[in-house]
């Protein structure tokens, strides 16, 4: 069996697919996670040149003052109010002139405050690019403050220290836990999604790799020679372990280079900030431990399923059809993550993390969000382990019959019949 593992490993590590996926998957992750963030921050990093048109003639100037206050993370103002027009004589002319400026790019947008029935005033912001959802709330904030100032003035309250009057009350959400209390869920949330994403992608990737590898041996008919030397079970087990070892190698490469990058980044950050800032990406050791446990359990479960499929089918088309239900199990467990994220301790979350096909991904999320009681962990691992053993056993039987069968794809009933063969 060692030979099988070694061949699978050495051949696979040298393939282009391995190199590509080793580099590609983290790149994809970075693209998925970082690119939208980058674009959002770049847009947010620009001062917008705007004009304010006040058709009501009440709050335009005050609004322009308030708009000048909010700052961007880099310290420059979010808005640069280039002109304020109160009660324009010819509203339509003014507006069409501003519209042209916006289209020509000399202005990023203009804010039109107009009287509206029922309320005192309503505003619209005209801009070329309406994608930034944060912009609306920044504008509404400034306008609301201006309107409050205006209303206070109407009630003869001096508005010279409007800032003090409008000071916000900060609220931070604190999670109550048995052991210790921890603030801020943003980071654990990201970590849980990241870990679940890694698990999902790698279970799928290595499972399908196992399947393809078996199909290749079957379709090139080298299977006959292999089976004349090796029993089917070690052949299948060797394949699964070989691909698994490739997967672990890939993890190690990722973890190693990730740690290096983080370490380097943190060092740079320390140098720049004088030793105060850090990335705060220290995840607890136990999380990594459970991650490995669930990766191994999930990997053996899914790859034995994929192995049985690879042995049962004899062409590409049948393979992609047969692959569908298994892939769906993985997809399902990944897309159910909101249930777990919203409430990791709910009955539904607990139930889902007991289902062996879901637990590898969902339980790791729960552990990352908020460690569940030990008995739940042990029960879930136990169920997963038993299912995996049963699955490997059943897959070995299907594999043994399937590898020598060519032709039409066997039906599910036929597969069940194969289980009874001696």
């Amino acid at each position: 069996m060692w030979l099988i593992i070694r061949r699978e490993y050495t051949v696979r590590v040298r393939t282009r697919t391995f190199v590509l996926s080793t580099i590609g998957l983290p790149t994809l992750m970075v693209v998925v996670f970082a690119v939208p963030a980058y674009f959002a921050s770049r847009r947010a990093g620009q001062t917008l040149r705007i004009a304010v048109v006040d058709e009501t003639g009440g709050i335009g100037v005050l609004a322009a003052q308030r708009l000048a206050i909010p700052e961007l993370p880099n310290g420059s103002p979010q808005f640069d109010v280039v002109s304020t027009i109160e009660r324009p004589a010819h509203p339509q002319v003014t507006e069409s002139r501003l519209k042209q400026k916006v289209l020509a790019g000399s202005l990023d947008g203009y804010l039109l405050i107009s009287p509206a029935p029922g309320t005192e005033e309503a505003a619209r912001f005209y801009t070329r690019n309406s994608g930034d959802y944060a912009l609306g709330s920044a504008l509404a904030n400034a306008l609301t403050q201006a309107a409050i100032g205006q209303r206070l003035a109407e009630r003869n309250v001096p508005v010279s220290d409007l800032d003090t009057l409008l000071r916000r009350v900060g609220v931070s959400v604190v999670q109550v836990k048995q052991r210790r209390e921890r603030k801020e869920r943003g980071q654990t949330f990201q970590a849980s999604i990241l870990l679940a994403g890694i698990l999902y992608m790698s279970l799928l990737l290595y499972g399908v790799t196992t399947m393809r590898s078996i199909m290749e041996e079957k379709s090139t008919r080298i299977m006959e020679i292999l089976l004349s030397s090796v029993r089917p079970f070690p052949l299948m087990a060797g394949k699964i372990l070989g691909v698994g070892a490739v997967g672990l190698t890939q993890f190690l490469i990722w973890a190693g280079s990730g740690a290096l990058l983080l370490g380097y980044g943190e060092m740079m950050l320390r140098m720049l900030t004088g030793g105060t800032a850090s990335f705060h990406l220290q995840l607890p050791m136990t999380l990594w431990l459970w991650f490995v446990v669930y990766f191994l359990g999930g990997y053996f479960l899914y790859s034995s399923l994929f192995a049985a499929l690879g042995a049962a089918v004899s062409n590409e088309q049948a393979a992609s059809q047969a692959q569908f239900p298994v892939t769906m199990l993985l997809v399902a467990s990944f897309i159910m993550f909101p249930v777990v994220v919203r409430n990791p301790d709910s009955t539904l979350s607990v139930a889902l993390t007991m289902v062996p096909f879901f637990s590898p991904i969902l339980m790791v999320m729960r552990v990352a969000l908020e460690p569940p009681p030990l008995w739940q962990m042990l029960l879930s691992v136990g169920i997963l382990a038993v299912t995996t053993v049963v699955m490997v056993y059943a897959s070995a039987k299907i594999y043994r019959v399937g590898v020598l069968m060519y032709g039409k794809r066997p039906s599910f009933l036929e597969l069940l019949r194969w289980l009874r063969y001696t």
Partner: protein
Amino acid sequence: MDAVTLRGVTKQFDGLTAVSGLSLSIRENAFFGLLGPNGAGKTTTLRMLLRMIIPDSGDIEILGQPLSHATQDRIGYLPEERGLYPRMRVRQVLMFLSELKGLREAEADRRTRQWLERLEMSDWMERRIDELSKGMQQKVQFIAAVLHEPPLLILDEPFSGFDPVNVALVKNIMLDLRKRGTTIILSTHRMEQVEMMCDSICLINHGRKVLAGELREIKKAFGRNMVRIEYIGNVDGLGLERFATDINRFGSVVEAKLRPEIDPQEILKAAVERGVALARFELMEPPLADIFVESVTKARA
């Protein structure tokens, strides 16, 4: 001791009987032909010898031992359906397959080089399998079967895909291995090869043994019922149809099968009477192909 013994071996697949009560023994150092029409159960039988399929009943012994991992290692197998890892290099594949058969790495390496040399493929050692021509892939596969120098060699259609030069090369290697004590089982449809190489055969049909034994004995039992006539001029006047069936004409030679009640002398008499000039008149054993067809059709009836 026999190289292979089967006793009442039966194998069914989903109610379909592939091999039924087959008993067979192949003596050591035999060149044995396993024959039968398509779907007769040849491949199933071979797979059972290799422990790839477990029989439903009956038992099998290889070199005096029940089937085990050890017996698997003592067999070399060239399956009918050929295949290798397309993206591995020739040397890697051969090393891997022979190490699976229990060879140590150094020994596997030595023999790989030696056999590639012998089959004139040394230059291709570091090429990938999918860069090789079909004939060359066949050679690599043949090497994979013989590399661990097994005492029992099972070859399923070993010559298919080879050009005549390679057929001769492979045939000589087979004969040489045999001289050194290897038992060879040849499964093929090519009767002329069996006739040329095998000393004993077994013909199976529908999973049952139809005919088995020494090739010479079998042919003798079928008798010299073939006639071969070389003539000068014209043979039409002879009226051969009265004496024989299955008449084949090749230029100035006619081969035919005698009708059972006919005495060959009657043909000679007729030739003299009708003035047909004969250059040669010969009674022959039937070719194996005819024995094959006759046995199979008789068994069917």
